[in-house]
C-alpha cells in the first residue's frame, strides 16, 4: 500500500530523517571521541576540545596499560571469570530447566511457583552479602558467579523451549535405552544450540559488566575485575568519601583512561550484532503480554 504523501508530509519526513540521523550520530560520538583519544597524545587531548581523528597517532596509551601488571591481571581475570561463569550459569540453568519441562514430574508446580516468587521478591543486598560472607566466598571469584547462577527469566524461557520440542524425539531415544541425562546431552542440547547461545551471551554480558558483585565481595584489590579497575582509573579524583579507592593512588593521564575504556568496551561491541538480534527477541518474549 502506498500512502499518498502531501507536501507537509514530505517536509515532516525530511525533518524526521535528519533528526533521527542526528540522534544516531550523537549516541555514537562519545565512543568515537574516546576511541580517537586513546590513540592521541596527552598534549592533544588537553589542547583540543573535541576530535574524532588524532593529529598525531600514537600507541603510547596502549603500550602503557599493557605494561601495567594491575591492568593485565584485571583483564585476564575478567576474561576467565566470564568464561567459567557463563558455562557454570548455563549448566545450572539447563539442568534445572529440563526436568521442569516434564509436566508429569511431581513437585514441579511447587518449584515453578517458588522460582516465580523469587523473581518478584529478593532478600536484598545485605542478607545476600551476609550469606556470601558466611559461605566463606568473600574475595573468591565464585562470589561473582554463584549468587547469579540461575536467572529465573532465562530458566523459564529455556523450560518453555524444551517443552515445545516434539516428544517423539525423546520417546524413540528411550526405546533405544537412553537415560534422561543421555537424552538431554545428545538430543536436546544439540537441538537447542541457538537458544543456548543466546542465554550464554546474556550471562556473559552480565558477568563482564557486573560492578556491584565485585564491589561487594572483592575487597582485595589484587583480585579486582576490569570494571573495578576502570572505575579506579577514571574516577580516582572524584571519589572523596566513598571509601574504596586506594588513597595513595595517583590518577593517570587522560590517554590511559581512554585506552582502558576502549578495552572494556571492545568485547561488547564485537558481540553487539549477536546481542542486538537475540536480546531484542528475548526482551519481547519476556515482556509483551499476549
Amino acid at each position: 500500500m502506498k500512502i499518498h504523501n502531501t507536501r507537509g508530509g514530505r517536509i515532516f519526513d525530511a525533518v524526521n530523517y535528519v533528526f533521527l540521523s542526528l540522534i544516531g550520530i550523537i549516541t555514537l560520538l562519545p565512543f568515537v571521541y574516546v576511541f580517537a583519544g586513546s590513540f592521541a597524545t596527552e598534549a592533544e587531548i588537553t589542547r583540543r576540545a573535541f576530535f574524532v581523528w588524532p593529529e598525531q597517532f600514537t600507541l603510547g596509551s596502549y603500550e602503557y596499560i599493557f605494561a601495567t601488571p594491575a591492568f593485565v591481571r584485571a583483564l585476564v581475570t575478567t576474561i576467565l571469570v566470564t568464561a567459567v561463569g557463563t558455562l557454570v550459569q548455563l549448566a545450572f540453568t539447563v539442568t534445572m530447566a529440563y526436568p521442569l519441562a516434564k509436566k508429569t514430574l511431581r513437585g514441579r508446580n511447587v518449584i515453578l511457583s517458588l522460582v516465580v516468587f523469587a523473581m518478584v521478591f529478593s532478600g536484598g543486598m545485605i542478607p545476600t552479602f551476609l550469606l556470601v560472607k558466611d559461605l566463606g566466598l568473600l574475595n573468591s571469584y565464585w562470589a561473582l558467579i554463584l549468587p547469579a547462577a540461575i536467572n529465573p527469566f532465562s530458566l523459564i524461557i529455556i523450560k518453555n523451549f524444551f517443552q515445545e520440542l516434539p516428544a517423539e524425539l525423546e520417546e524413540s531415544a528411550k526405546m533405544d535405552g537412553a537415560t534422561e541425562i543421555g537424552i538431554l546431552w545428545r538430543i536436546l542440547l544439540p537441538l537447542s544450540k541457538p537458544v543456548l547461545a543466546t542465554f550464554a551471551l546474556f550471562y556473559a554480558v552480565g558477568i563482564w559488566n557486573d560492578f556491584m558483585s565485585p564491589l561487594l565481595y572483592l575487597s582485595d584489590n589484587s583480585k579486582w575485575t576490569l570494571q573495578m579497575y576502570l572505575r579506579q582509573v577514571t574516577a580516582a579524583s572524584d571519589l572523596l568519601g566513598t571509601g574504596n579507592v586506594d588513597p595513595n593512588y595517583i590518577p593517570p593521564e587522560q590517554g590511559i583512561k581512554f585506552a582502558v575504556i576502549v578495552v572494556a568496551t571492545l568485547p561488547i561491541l564485537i558481540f553487539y550484532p549477536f546481542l542486538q538480534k537475540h536480546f531484542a527477541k528475548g526482551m519481547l518474549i519476556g515482556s509483551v503480554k499476549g
Partner: protein
Amino acid sequence: MAAPVIDTLAGERVRKSAPAPRNRGRFSVHFAHYKWLYLLLLPGVVYFAVFRYAPMYGVSIAFKDYVPFLGVNGSPWVGFRNFEDFFANPDFPRLLGNTLILAFLNLGVAFPLTIVLALLLNEVRLSILKRTVQTLVYIPHFLSWTIVASLSFLLFALDIGPLFQLLNTVMGTNIDFLSDPAWFRPLIVLQEIWKNTGWGTIIFLAALATVDQDQYEAAIIDGAGRFRRVWHITLPAIRSTIIVMLILAIGQMLNTGFEQIYLMTNALNREVADVFDTYVYFVGITQGAYSYSTAVGLFKSLVGIVLIFGTNWLAKRFNQSGLF
C-alpha cells in the same frame, strides 16, 4: 494475590486446587522412574534454596539486632526498632525526596522520550535508515554503568572535557558538572536517556507494528494529517502497552539503580545523590549496620510492591487493561 502473575510468567496455567483426577500411584515408584530427572533438578533447587531463599529468611535480621558472632538465628529480636530508627532519622526524608525526584524525572522525561523516539522511528519508511538508527541507539544499553560513568567523567572533565567546554561556553559559566550538586540530577537523567531510551523503544515498536494499516488509509481518505493520525490511531492502539510499561516503571520507582548512582556519587554531591539503594550500601556494608540497612532495604521493597499493585488497581479502575 500474586497468583495471576505466576500463571502468566511461568508461561502456562499452574494448577492450584484439585489434584489430578487420574490415579498417581506411590511416590517411591514415581521417584524411581524419574530418578535421573530429580538428580538433574538438584543443583538448581539447591541454588534457589541457598542463594534466593536463604537471603529472604535473612531479611528477618531487619527485626533483630544482628551480631555476626551470633548469626541470623542467634541474634536477639528487637521488633520494629530498626524501622523506627530509620523513620526518625533525618536521613529518611532526604533519601525519600532524592529517590522520588530522580524517579519522577526518569518517568517524566526519559519515559515519554522513549515513546516519542518509537513514534518517530515508526514514521520512517526508509528501512535502511530505520535499521541503522536502531542499531546505533541500542548500543549503549549493553555497556556497563562503569563505562557510562567513565565516559561522563571524560566528557565533563574539569577544563578539558568536550561537554564541559561546550556547555560552559554556551552558558557563559564555569561549572564543574561532576561535583556541582545542582547538576547531579540532570546528569543522571542524561545518562539514563543515553543508555536506555533507544533500547526501550523495542517494546513500543513491536506494539506499533501490530496497528491495523487500513485505519490509516481510512483516516487519509477522511483528510487526517500526519499528527492527527498519530494522535487518533497510533497512540490509542499502543495505549495498553504504554500503561503496562508505566506500571512496571512505577513498580521500579524506588530502584534508582545502585550502580549508576553509586558511581556518580562523590563527597560534594552526597546531599542530593544519596538514595535508598546507595544508603543501604554505605550504612550496611561500609559501616556494618547490618540490621538497620536490611530494614531500609525491606521498606523499599515493600513500598515497591505496594506501588505496583496500586498502579495496577488504578489502571483497572480507569477501565484500562492492567498488568494482571
